[in-house]
């Protein structure tokens, strides 16, 4: 039997950009993206030198540059599109974030001076067996960035990775995150996308060993003429693995655009899998568009549960009426409903200070939008 090329697990992988055809915008994985704006990043020349970052000295965390020939590089996954391969081939070295503490540690790696030159980046986050850590990639300032982020979660480790996009308004950001979760290990992976012209972060999780689990979260707020996209892939490849995917977004203003594609593969080895993915979008004004495409492939009969949900809607008038009937003004009622809607994800990030900052940002956005 030939496998149709749509099947996610059968997509070609390569670190060589020449192995991928030129991107036209008709491809399955590019057809929702504003390809014309992105050609420079997909196939143009990129600056592959070390990128600027800062991070505080933290016990149990070490950062270093390693060559891309290091045997750990490529273990979590390999590029599945031309932009990702372009960055992989260009980045001279890989920033290794090595996590070893068995007591919970948290580190924020800030990138706020990437500049306007198109550049490549490659990060490898390695959580040692039994370690417990949180890594926040905090992004702001200018960017024309294509990057690969690899995440290796050792046996029994608990890792929380959050990437926060608060770029300048004309920033372009294409990212592929590849993670491999070990035996009885847990990964929580979150994408928070707030500002930037085009943000396309595609995370994948390979549940490679018995009892591995992943929670993938996303929260996004698209303003006028902003494009925010995420193509999520969960590969259940071992018995008793578990995944929960929850992405929630709000759209406000003419031309606000979001895309969510959620592929879940439950392979023939993945007996006893427990999987659920959902995406919900709230359109706050006219002129917005949210695409939401869940997709489940199941290759084994023996699973504990698998489901998906996807919904895109407008304000619920009955909710607004209920709040207004208690004296709450229409604007305030809208704020409450939207914040409540996004809170389900924001509250789960596991970093209270970050949740608070995001809530404050969302409040300000809504205040600005309603008036």
């Amino acid at each position, binding site marked *: 039997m030939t496998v149709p090329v749509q099947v996610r697990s059968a997509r070609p992988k390569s670190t060589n950009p020449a192995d991928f055809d030129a991107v036209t915008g008709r491809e399955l994985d590019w057809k929702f993206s504003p390809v014309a704006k992105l050609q420079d990043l997909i196939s143009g020349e990129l600056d592959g030198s070390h990128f600027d970052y800062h991070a505080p000295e933290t016990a149990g965390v070490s950062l270093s540059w390693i060559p891309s020939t290091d045997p750990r590089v490529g273990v979590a996954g390999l590029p599945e599109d031309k932009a990702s391969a372009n960055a992989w081939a260009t980045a001279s070295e890989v920033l290794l974030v090595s996590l070893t503490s068995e007591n919970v540690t948290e580190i924020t790696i800030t990138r706020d001076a990437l500049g306007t030159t198109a550049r490549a980046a490659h990060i490898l986050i390695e959580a040692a067996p039994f370690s417990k850590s949180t890594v926040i990639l905090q992004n702001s300032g200018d960017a024309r960035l294509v990057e690969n982020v690899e995440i290796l979660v050792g046996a029994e480790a608990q890792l929380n990775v959050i990437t926060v996009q608060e770029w300048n308004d004309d920033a372009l950001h294409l990212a592929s995150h590849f993670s491999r979760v070990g035996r009885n290990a847990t990964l929580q992976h979150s994408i928070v996308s707030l500002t930037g012209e085009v943000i396309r972060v595609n995370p994948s999780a390979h549940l490679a060993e018995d009892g591995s689990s992943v929670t993938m979260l996303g929260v996004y707020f698209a303003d006028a003429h902003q494009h925010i996209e995420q193509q999520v892939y969960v590969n259940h490849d071992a018995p008793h693995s578990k995944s929960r995917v929850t992405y929630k977004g709000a759209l406000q203003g003419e031309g606000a655009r979001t895309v969510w594609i959620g592929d879940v593969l439950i392979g023939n080895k993945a007996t006893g899998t427990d999987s659920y993915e959902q995406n919900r979008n709230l359109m706050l004004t006219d002129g917005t568009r949210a695409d939401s495409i869940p997709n489940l492939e199941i290759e084994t009969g023996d699973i504990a549960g698998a489901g998906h949900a996807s919904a895109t809607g407008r304000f*619920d*008038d*009955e*909710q607004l*009426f*209920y*709040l*207004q*009937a*208690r*004296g*709450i*003004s*229409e604007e*305030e*009622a809208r704020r*409450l*409903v939207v*914040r*409540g*809607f*996004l*809170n*389900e994800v924001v509250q789960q990030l596991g970093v209270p200070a970050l949740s608070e900052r995001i809530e404050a940002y969302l409040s300000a956005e809504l205040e600005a939008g309603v008036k």
Partner: protein
Amino acid sequence: MSTLKITDLHVSVETDQGTKQILRGVNLEINSGETHAIMGPNGSGKSTLAYTIAGHPKYTVDSGSITLDGEDVLEMSVDERAKAGLFLAMQYPVEIPGVTVTNFLRTAKTAIDGEAPSLRNWIKEVRESMANLKMDASFSERNVNEGFSGGEKKRHEILQLELLKPKFAVLDETDSGLDVDALKIVSEGVNRAKENTGMGVLLITHYTRILRYIKPEFVHVFVNGKVAEEGGPELADRLESEGYDRYTEIA
């Protein structure tokens, strides 16, 4: 003393089949401290009257008036009506994901009073009111109406009534879906609020059961979009034994 006055009210709703007339000339006057029961068969327009008083956008007032102490209620937005002292305990309270009861109650109280309540007193008052209604303290951290049972939703409505202290409360079938114990607890809540604030009550119900606990001075029989008969508490007893057949046949 306040007066809520409804005069010759005609209300319609837009449906897929065109405009549907529901209320056909309702007259009603309620003063502070009075309790009026509105009883009527399914579909007679009781909820429509309640929603129209609260200002639900789905219902169009074709003619007639609603005034509160002479002020034109129909000119007010939904939140302005609540601030003016009108309260609707809904027949089907909606769920609001991600908004906790605590946050909701404080926001509503602040909106109605025009200033935030003093935190210490407020927390105490909420706690006491919840205890009176036999609501577990854990409700305050739950999302508004999310996963609440039918009875819990009704208690939550009465909790708001007690905390927001309106001039007039419209209770739309607050008794339906309650077992006897819950019915007693909820009725006591209404009576307590009435005692404390002297509010007027418009109690909409199908059944006479709740009238054992909340005593109306006036009973209005609602049929086919208007009041078909009015009387004292004895009218409710007659409805209990005879039902609405007499009225529906005339209509």
